[in-house]
């Protein structure tokens, strides 16, 4: 994307923003929830999207504090310039990342929702993003061409408050939730949907880890979750949900993603990921214990997913589900993924002048992939994978921030699944990766953040030097991002 295009985009956004200023007086200079509640961003966020204790209350109460807005719309944009340490794919001599080094917009979103009634609230996001990743230049220059837009994280909540002791003081919230991204309904920044370093949606990278637990992103806008939760005395959070392929009247939740148009088995090869053919019943649970004292909030929790996926031997691929509700036909083999995780978060939020967070998670996945094994798409009938993440963040006067994080992946070697037989894959079949993220933030206005983010791949897909056996080094994909994130 050229600078001229960026300028055009920004001009459009500024004009749109100006229109909103005119429409939404006496709004604060922040998006839809802030206009609804009259709060500043800092009330609910330490650093978006991480939530404060009050932000967690707001979300678990279904976004229903404050006044329903007549025009509940906000916009957000992320733009950046990236630099890859060694922007050459040594197996081909071509570029790893294009257009790295040019200013471009990574994504632009329209937010909608907030309070609908006293008991119903919506968080919605519609996002415009470049097609694919790796090469988003114009078609004529070898890129994948135009942008596409699609439903992004979206959820609808219904809540009810009551007194568990009969005292008349409501101390318990129960809620019902429909969403389109596994874990987006959670309120702690330790679950895959809200975990650093995924906060900034940069679209340009070099090589990245090939292995990832199913629960970490693979189901985003590819499965619909329906569930209920209870939030008891601000201490215990328990949720049960089930995820399934987007079907029938819920398919609007994945509009634009193409995932609601993948039912035919003949189509599965083009565009439908394996997760589209989940069984109709994939349970997810979440249990968390939260303890607040003084300016501190501590959470220790666990969550897990058991997902089943059907295979159709005739196509040698995951089964495309022609039946409208995702039922399989008798005799189809199944693969299953059992992801179990523990997570923890500590926040210090005195705020004059320091705040800080330490957050982490450990996910253990057991993938029983008999069908893949039988069809030559896996080296083992079952694989295990471990993902560990730990992050520390501090902010001074909510203006200057530093975050440091480590991500570590280990697991059973699987030459076919992780080797990919090509550039960026694992020469040894090992899924092991370890990388560090360092981010410096400058937040001059409460809804505008500048960031300088560096990712250091100490180990990528099983190795450091020549990790793919084709001449690429892990540190060659080290990534520097200069980004801006603006919401209005």
């Amino acid at each position, binding site marked *: 994307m050229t600078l001229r295009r960026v300028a055009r985009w920004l001009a459009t956004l500024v004009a749109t923003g100006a229109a909103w200023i005119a429409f939404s007086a006496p709004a604060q200079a922040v998006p839809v929830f802030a206009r609804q509640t009259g709060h*500043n961003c800092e009330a609910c966020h330490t650093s978006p999207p991480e939530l404060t204790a009050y932000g967690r209350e707001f979300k678990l109460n279904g976004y229903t504090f404050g006044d329903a807005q007549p025009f509940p719309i906000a916009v957000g944009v992320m733009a950046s310039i990236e630099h890859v340490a060694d922007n050459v794919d040594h197996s081909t001599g071509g570029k790893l990342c294009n257009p790295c080094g040019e200013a471009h917009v990574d994504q632009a979103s329209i937010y909608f929702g907030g309070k609908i009634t006293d008991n119903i609230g919506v968080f919605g996001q519609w996002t415009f993003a470049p097609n694919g990743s790796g090469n988003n230049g114009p078609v004529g220059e070898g890129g994948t061409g135009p942008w596409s837009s699609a439903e992004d994280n979206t959820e609808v909540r219904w809540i009810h408050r009551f007194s568990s002791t009969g005292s008349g*003081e409501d101390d318990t919230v129960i809620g019902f939730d429909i969403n389109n991204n596994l874990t987006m309904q959670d309120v702690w920044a330790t679950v895959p949907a809200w975990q650093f370093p995924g906060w900034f949606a940069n679209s340009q990278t070099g090589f990245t880890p090939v292995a990832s637990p199913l629960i970490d992103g693979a189901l985003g806008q590819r499965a619909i979750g329906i569930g209920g939760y209870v939030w008891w005395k601000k201490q215990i959070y328990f949720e049960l949900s089930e995820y399934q392929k987007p079907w029938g009247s819920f398919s609007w939740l994945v509009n634009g993603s193409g995932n609601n148009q993948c039912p035919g088995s003949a189509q599965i090869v083009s565009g439908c990921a394996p997760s589209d053919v989940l069984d109709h019943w994939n349970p997810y649970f979440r249990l968390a214990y939260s303890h607040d004292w003084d300016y501190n909030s501590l959470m220790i929790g666990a969550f897990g997913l058991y997902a089943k996926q059907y295979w159709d031997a005739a196509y040698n691929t995951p089964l495309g589900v022609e039946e409208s509700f995702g039922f399989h036909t008798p005799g189809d083999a199944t693969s299953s993924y059992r992801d179990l995780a523990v997570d923890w978060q500590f926040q210090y939020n005195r*705020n004059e002048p320091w705040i800080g967070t330490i957050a982490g998670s450990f996910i253990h996945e057991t993938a029983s992939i008999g069908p893949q094994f039988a069809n030559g798409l896996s080296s083992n009938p079952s694989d295990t994978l471990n993902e560990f993440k730990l992050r520390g963040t501090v902010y001074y006067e909510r203006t200057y921030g530093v975050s440091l994080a480590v991500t570590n992946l280990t697991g059973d070697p699987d030459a076919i699944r992780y080797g990919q037989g090509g550039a960026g894959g694992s020469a040894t079949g090992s899924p092991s990766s370890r990388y560090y993220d360092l981010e410096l933030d400058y937040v001059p206005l409460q809804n505008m953040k500048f960031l300088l983010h560096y990712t250091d791949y100490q180990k990528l897909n099983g190795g450091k030097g020549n990790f793919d056996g084709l001449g690429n080094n892990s540190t060659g994909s080290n990534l520097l991002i200069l980004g801006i994130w603006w919401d209005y």
Partner: protein
Amino acid sequence: METNMTRNASRAAKVLSGVVLAMMTTFASADDGMAATPGAAAAAPGASPLAIKLAPERAHYLVNKWCSACHGYYGRSIAPTFPNLAGQSAEYIAQELQYFHNLTQDDRAITHESWIEQWLINITGLRSKYRYDDAPRNEFRAWDFMKGVARDLDPPTMQALGEYFAKQTPAPGKIVNTGDIARGKTLYLEGDADKGLIACQSCHGPEAKGQGPIPRLAGQHADYVYLQLKYIQKGTRNVEQMQALITNLNEADFKALAAYVQSLN
């Protein structure tokens, strides 16, 4: 004679007006039972009898739904960011809510910005976030949280909220080691003539229970009290009567006073 058509038309009109009315009711009920026209109620001290009658119920609804998210169940909060309200003077709470309600953008200072921030404010037309030390008339929490909460409250509801919290059991006293409690006790009960401080108890009462527009301090979070003293001394929280009295007090004095009042039941 009325034709079928006109009958149908009038029936349709009735249905339609019913739907519109239902929608209006829905939207009205979606505003937390707050006044639909903020400002109008505030300008009218003689609120309608119905508003006054419904205020306690509205207040309790708001407490359960919104206030308790920060101020805790029964107005006994956990984080010192948020003051304990249980047992607080009703008049003081109503007065502060009215004050939050009346805040305007102009009350927020834009000072001490770096040149980058000044430049961004100029080109975007967006207000900066305030710096905690600089807000001219109130501390940051008023802006982060309370301005929005009080935005659409009417005076009867403010009064009813005050009365709800006033009758709750206050948070018990707690010994904290952030300040010299003995020194705080002396300052509170006797003042300090050298520093121009009259005894705090002369307004807040010997047991720091407050009354009328004077807030209760007993059992309040020490760090909250400490920060309020700092803001008042700087003038970032505008309480002129107190500012003059505590001009010469230092950090240690503030911490001592704060620790002492939290130790009181």
